[in-house]
Each structure stands twice: as structure tokens, then as C-alpha cells.
């Protein structure tokens, strides 16, 4: 019984520490980065004033700290705003929707490995809340629930633009989930593993998926099979990353909330903290998306180049704190990827809806399917005879050509009956 209590206590500590002290603060920090980075891109300054107002307490100077307190000020503003509920909305769903968008994004945190195991008093603990053996599947299963929140928000607002936004978002997220799911099948085939923690451990030992430049702790070029697998890995990375952009409703795919067409999209009727929850859900989804990309393709918490086993060995007495350094590396990678998200947002203009659908269904779906077969061929190659490999390659090329031809033909406009 005390053992069970101890386990529960550890799980609680992990939930509080990782979800509320690591991932949730990343949300306002990414909002801050978004504002500062976009300002810098546009030759502006961005919020750099909000700090601790020491002058109010009689000191000479305020403490600005690059405006890092700005997200907190935003949060306080959103808390204190009037929480207005229009009287024509469907109240129950209207109130449920914001929670439904945030909760899935935060639940998916639980399978992300944040670092290598920490050992304290001889007790080894993984830096992951739930060490599930179906990590990516769990993430997809839960994160696709976000679409309910957005759809319900659009429908329950009982107003035309939110409804259009909600419908768009439903179609978009369902379309891109297919490309998302198919694109990581090569990755899972390669690792032969669905446990994210073990995937990262494998990458730490044998080189990141996109950077296979070391083997068992020593630098060196990869063997032929790993080198060849780099091609489907890059294709999978591109499809997965772009699909994550679409899944999180980020620019260039933010059609559910594009201001120029739909006022505010599905959250037009929301104000105050309810709006903030949508906002938070979107950024939390972005954080989780980046975490997933970093975990699957860019080595998760590993520093790479065979240095991880030295880091894992760091200890003071019985306290092996290497995991905390890995946590720091993971967060650094995460923030770097979030900055990439922001750079994309302020670089690429919004797609048209038909272009978005075409990209998802005509290009990514097929490309991901072909990629699965390509990866399978490369992985299975050592066990096949040369003739079978040749036939497989020819078949693959033929199928690819056929799909490209179909896509090209479908693009041609029918001739008008009268010129």
C-alpha cells in the first residue's frame, strides 16, 4: 500500500513539474517570442517595456528585463476582462468548447520524454509522465479530439463566421491527420518501436533520424542502409512538419481563423479567459507539435555526437542529474523549433482553401503512401535478393509516375463548350 502511494506521489510530482512547470510556461514564452521575433522581422522593436515597476516603489529605475513580463500582463488583462456570453449562443457547448481545445493538447504532454532517467536515492525515474508503449498513436488519438472543441465553438456560437471557421477547421484537421499518420509510418518502421522514450534512446545511441553521423558513441559515416533511409526520413520530416502546421491551425494554414475573411474564426464570439483558452490551446498544440517533431526526427533530449552517455553519467553521490541537463537540451531544441514555427508564420502568406485541400489530399497523402513503400523497401533490402529489390524499385517508380500523371491530368481544366 505505501508503495502504491509512493508511485502515485511520483506521478503527481511529474504531472505538476512537467505539465505545469515546463510545458505551460512555454505557452506564454512562445507568445512573447512570437511578438518579439515578428517585430524584429518587420524592423520594429516589440514589447520590451513591461517589467517590474520599481519606480512605483521609490527606486530610480524600472526593471525591464526585455519585456519578459509582458505575457503575464497579457494574462492578467485576459483574466480581468469581462467574460461576456451572448444570449443567442448554445450555452453548455459554448462553455465546454474552450476546455475541449486546451485539455487534449495538455494531455498529450504525458507521453513526451523530456530527458534521460534521473536516479535519486537508488531509485531510477524516467522523465516522462506515462511511459506508454503506443506513444505516437496516443498523441494522434488525443490531439485529434481538439477538433471537437473548435467545431463545437463554431457551431455553438450560433453565428455565421464562427460556423464557417469551425467547419473549415474540421475539414482541415481531418484531412491532414491522414498525411500526419501516414508520414510517420516509415519512422516507426525504422525504429521498430512505438515507445517515444526508447525511440529517443535509440537516436542518442545511433544518431538522430535526420543526422545519422555517429554509431554507439563514436562519430562516423552511417552504413549504406541508414544512409539510404535518410531520403524517406527527410520526406517524412517535411510531410510531418507541414501537416503539424496544418493541424495546429498555424499560418500558412490558419484558414479557420483568418481575420480577413472570417472576422476571428471560431472564437469570434469569445472574450476574456474563454478566448485565452483557445489561444493557449493553439500555442500548446504548437509546443506539443514541436516536441513530437523534435522527439521523432531530431533526437529528442539527446545532445548527439555520442556525448549523451557522458551526460547521463554525471552525478553527485547517488543523484544522477544528467536527465536534467537533457531536459534543458530538449527545451532548447523545442524553443528553436518554436522559433522556426514563428519564422514560417511571418514569412509565408496564407494558402487558399482549395490549395490547402489539394496539398493535403493530392500531394501529401500520395507522397506519404509512396514514402511508406520506399522506406519498407530500404529496410527490407538486406533480406531480399537483388532481383526482388529491382522489381520493387521498378514498381515503386511506376506507381509514383502513375500518381504524378493522375495528379497532373486532374489539374487540367475541361475545355469550355463554347469558346
Amino acid at each position, binding site marked *: 500500500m505505501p508503495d502504491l502511494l509512493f508511485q502515485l506521489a511520483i506521478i503527481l510530482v511529474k504531472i505538476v513539474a512537467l505539465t505545469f512547470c515546463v510545458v505551460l510556461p512555454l505557452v506564454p514564452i512562445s507568445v512573447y517570442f512570437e511578438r518579439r521575433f515578428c517585430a524584429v522581422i518587420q524592423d520594429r522593436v516589440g514589447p520590451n517595456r513591461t517589467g517590474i515597476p520599481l519606480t512605483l516603489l521609490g527606486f530610480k529605475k524600472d526593471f525591464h528585463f526585455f519585456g519578459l513580463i509582458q505575457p503575464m500582463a497579457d494574462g492578467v488583462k485576459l483574466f480581468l476582462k469581462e467574460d461576456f456570453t451572448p444570449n443567442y449562443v448554445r450555452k453548455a457547448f459554448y462553455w465546454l468548447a474552450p476546455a475541449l481545445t486546451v485539455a487534449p493538447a495538455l494531455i498529450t504532454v504525458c507521453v513526451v520524454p523530456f530527458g534521460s532517467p534521473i536516479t535519486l536515492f537508488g531509485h531510477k525515474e524516467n522523465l516522462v509522465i506515462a511511459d506508454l508503449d503506443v506513444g505516437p498513436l496516443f498523441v494522434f488519438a488525443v490531439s485529434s479530439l481538439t477538433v471537437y472543441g473548435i467545431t463545437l465553438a463554431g457551431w455553438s456560437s450560433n453565428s455565421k463566421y464562427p460556423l464557417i471557421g469551425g467547419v473549415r477547421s474540421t475539414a482541415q484537421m481531418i484531412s491532414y491527420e491522414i498525411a500526419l499518420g501516414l508520414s510517420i509510418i516509415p519512422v516507426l518502421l525504422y525504429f521498430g518501436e512505438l515507445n517515444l522514450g526508447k525511440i529517443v534512446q535509440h537516436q542518442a545511441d545511433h544518431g538522430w533520424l535526420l543526422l545519422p553521423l555517429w554509431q554507439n558513441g563514436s562519430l562516423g559515416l552511417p552504413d549504406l542502409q541508414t544512409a539510404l533511409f535518410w531520403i524517406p526520413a527527410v520526406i517524412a520530416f517535411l510531410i510531418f512538419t507541414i501537416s503539424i502546421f496544418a493541424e495546429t491551425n498555424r499560418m500558412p494554414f490558419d484558414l479557420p481563423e483568418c481575420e480577413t475573411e472570417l472576422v476571428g474564426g471560431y472564437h469570434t464570439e469569445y472574450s476574456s479567459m474563454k478566448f485565452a483558452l483557445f489561444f493557449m490551446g493553439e500555442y500548446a498544440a504548437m509546443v506539443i507539435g514541436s516536441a513530437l517533431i523534435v522527439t521523432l526526427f531530431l533526437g529528442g533530449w539527446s545532445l548527439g555526437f555520442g556525448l549523451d552517455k557522458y551526460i547521463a553519467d554525471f552525478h553527485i553521490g547517488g543523484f544522477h542529474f544528467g536527465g536534467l541537463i537533457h531536459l534543458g537540451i530538449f527545451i532548447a531544441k523545442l524553443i528553436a523549433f518554436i522559433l522556426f514555427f514563428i519564422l514560417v508564420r511571418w*514569412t509565408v502568406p496564407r494558402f487558399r482553401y482549395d490549395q490547402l485541400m489539394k496539398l493535403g489530399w493530392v500531394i501529401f497523402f500520395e507522397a506519404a503512401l509512396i514514402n511508406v513503400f520506399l522506406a519498407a523497401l530500404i529496410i527490407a533490402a538486406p533480406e531480399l535478393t537483388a532481383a526482388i529489390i529491382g522489381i520493387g524499385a521498378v514498381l515503386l517508380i511506376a506507381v509514383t509516375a502513375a500518381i504524378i500523371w493522375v495528379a497532373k491530368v486532374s489539374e487540367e481544366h475541361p475545355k469550355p463548350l463554347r469558346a
Partner: protein
Amino acid sequence: MAVIKLQRPKLNFGEKIYFGALIKGFILTMTHAVKSLLGKSASADSMASSGLGVTMQFPEQRWDEHLPEYYRGAPALVTDEQGRERCVSCQLCEFICPPKAIKIIPSEIPSDDPWAKVEKRPKEFDIDMIRCIYCGMCEEVCPEQAIFLRKDYLITGLKRADMVHDKKRLYEIGGVRTGLVNKWNELK
């Protein structure tokens, strides 16, 4: 209505793939970001930038010495070189003012005043700076050249009453203007 047939541009393979344009875009935005961080944005010098982008950071840096000659700031009343109020309260500015920001209550000048021949001067002259749109029509219409748009732009207040400039405040901002109209001067 004439039918205009638009010819969509024919895109070649590279343009259809779109990645080239993406990379170009990233290079463009990152160049802007780096230049902005180094304080070397285009025209950062001529904009007197603070060293981050082209922005001048307000309370520490002011645009004042860069204000152009024609800048239209807060309207103000002026006195002439002999300390006489130029305004004769003809109320033309009150009538022309598009947002009706000006309110004038005219009064007679008593006969024992040295400027009794001017006949009138404003008793009250209020400009509501919340309504004022800085159009400069009052300055243009004034036959006595008594009201000018100065370069003051920091018109702030904590309540509405603070934002109404009365006669005293207007002369404070305006100060003295010499020359100009001299029809009221003594004949030599």
C-alpha cells in the same frame, strides 16, 4: 459589361514545387531580422532609430528636432510684440472648425483700455483637444493671424476637463509672434 479574360501565369516546375520561393522568403525575413538586430535596417539612420529596427523609442527619444516645418500640432493663440492679444473674437475659427472643437465667448474692450480701438477680445476661448482634428483650418481662416498650429503633440490629460485648453493655456502654448499683422499699431 465587357468580359475580361484573365490569363493565369504559366508556372514552371520550380515555381510549382514552391520550395524555392519558401527558401527565398526565409532568407528575406532572416536578413531583415539580422539587420534589425544589428541596427542596420534600411533607412535606420535617417529615421534616427534606437538601434533595433527603424523604431525610435519614445520617452527617451523624441521626434522633436526632426519635425517638418509644416507639422500641425496643437492650436494655440499668440500675442503680438506689444503684448496685445491678437484675437479680436470674430469667431470665424469657431464657425469653420469641422469638429466644433472651438468655443468663444466674445467681450467688449472697455474704453479706458489702450487697445480700445480693437473693440473686441475673447472673454473665454476654449479648444477641446479631444475633438480637435489638427486640420489647421482655424489658422487658415484667421484674419488677424492670432491662432497657429504649434508643434506640440503631447496633449494628454487624466480627465476630460484636462483636455479642454482655456484661454490662459492657449496663450501659454502660443507665446509671442512678432511682425505679421500690424494694422492695429500706432500710426507713425
